[in-house]
């Protein structure tokens, strides 16, 4: 009799453990119910392939040449210069989000880098603890409660979503390079900015792509999670 009671107790306790484990797992599962709205997956995959082909056969060799010809210090100076020009966009969209501390920081950062940092070529602000507060109209709309809509891969520009694509022209309005006259000068300077950006970040792109069995999924999910993080912050 004693044995039967012991066995029953053991069975009951094991059952409790398995129920506890089951509940615990379900609780964890709830943290990962992230579904990216991707009704245009076929088109997106196609465009993503086109972009990677362009990257592999056109941009990547071009970037390698640029990388060889242009010294690292110059590349970083150009990178910092163009990054600094994003400050007005960061300031405006942080201000419109009522994020005053971020706005003040970004104003200070822009002032310091544009003056002491010689038009932003040297990122003096970061070493003085004034960090960038990245934001744009897509982030602003997200903070106002607009959902991301559906995932969208844009030609050449890459990952985006409906909300961010709609916001993109507004971002362009605040970017000073777009006001350069004549128009071809603006296009040329933009091209330099993009090439330099890709050169500096090429190792990251290559590594990111190498990491996955399906770079499309990795980039899609990472893009949406990263944008959500900027909105939440």
């Amino acid at each position, binding site marked *: 009799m004693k044995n039967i009671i012991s066995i029953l107790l053991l069975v009951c306790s094991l059952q409790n453990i398995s129920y506890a484990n089951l509940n615990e*797992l379900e*609780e*964890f*599962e709830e*943290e*990962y119910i*992230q579904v*990216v709205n991707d009704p245009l997956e076929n088109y997106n995959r196609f465009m993503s392939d086109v972009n990677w082909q362009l990257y592999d056969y056109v941009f990547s060799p071009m970037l390698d040449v640029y990388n060889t010809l242009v010294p690292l210090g110059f590349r970083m100076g150009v990178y*910092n210069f163009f*990054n600094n020009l994003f400050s007005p966009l960061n300031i405006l969209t942080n201000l419109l989000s009522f994020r005053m501390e971020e706005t003040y920081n970004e104003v200070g*950062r822009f002032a310091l880098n544009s003056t002491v940092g010689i038009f932003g070529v040297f*990122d003096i*602000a*970061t070493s003085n603890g004034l*960090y*960038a*507060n*990245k934001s744009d109209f897509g982030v602003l709309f997200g903070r106002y409660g607009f959902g991301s809509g559906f995932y969208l891969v844009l030609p050449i520009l890459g990952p985006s979503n409906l909300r961010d694509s709609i916001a993109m022209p507004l971002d362009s309005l605040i970017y000073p390079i777009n006001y350069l006259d004549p128009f071809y000068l603006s296009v040329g300077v933009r091209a330099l900015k993009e090439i330099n950006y890709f050169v500096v970040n090429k*190792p*990251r792109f290559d*590594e990111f792509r*190498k*990491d*996955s*069995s*399906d770079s499309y*999924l*990795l980039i*899609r*999910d*990472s893009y949406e*999670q*990263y944008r*959500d*993080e*900027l909105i*939440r912050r």
Partner: protein
Amino acid sequence: MKKVFVILCCALLCVNLYALPFDSIESEMKARIDKSMKIVKTNKDSKIMADEIFALFDFMFDYELMAKLSLSKEYNNLDNRQKEMFVSYYKKSLQQNFASKLELYKDNTIEVVGGEQIKENRYNLTASIVIDGALSYIIFKFYPKNNDWLIYDVDIIGISVVQTYRSQFADILKSSGIDGVFDRLKSGELFAEE
């Protein structure tokens, strides 16, 4: 009897050596992140540095749970041998990914900002890293297990490690089932090969 007592004491000591009680999460993580920063500055081979850093944090990670969450409900359909193999490949994949990233971020400094108990059984420890002039965050997610607190996920600039694996595994499962997942893991396609 004496021998049994000595073995028990040793076992208890070992358990204590590798325990991470709630109160020491922040201090332990801070100390180990500082140590790993020093390792990174030694400029050794990435693989060696990654191994040394992993040795510092290994006992804090619940790889089994991470693997389980990454494969989601399909994990329960595996037999014990498959589970063991899956966790082992998964751990290797994480380590390889980490090693390949070290080279890219070795000049960045990581600092512990602080922790927050978001609910009774969840604790998030936030560390900061400056990337492109912007302050970004790495969140180590802890949960309690047998009086210890273990890491079950890491968010890097908002991107969850577990979530990225989940999406990829779900897609492979859909197209080629669990065999496909094992094939990809074995061939090293889910992690950067040296």
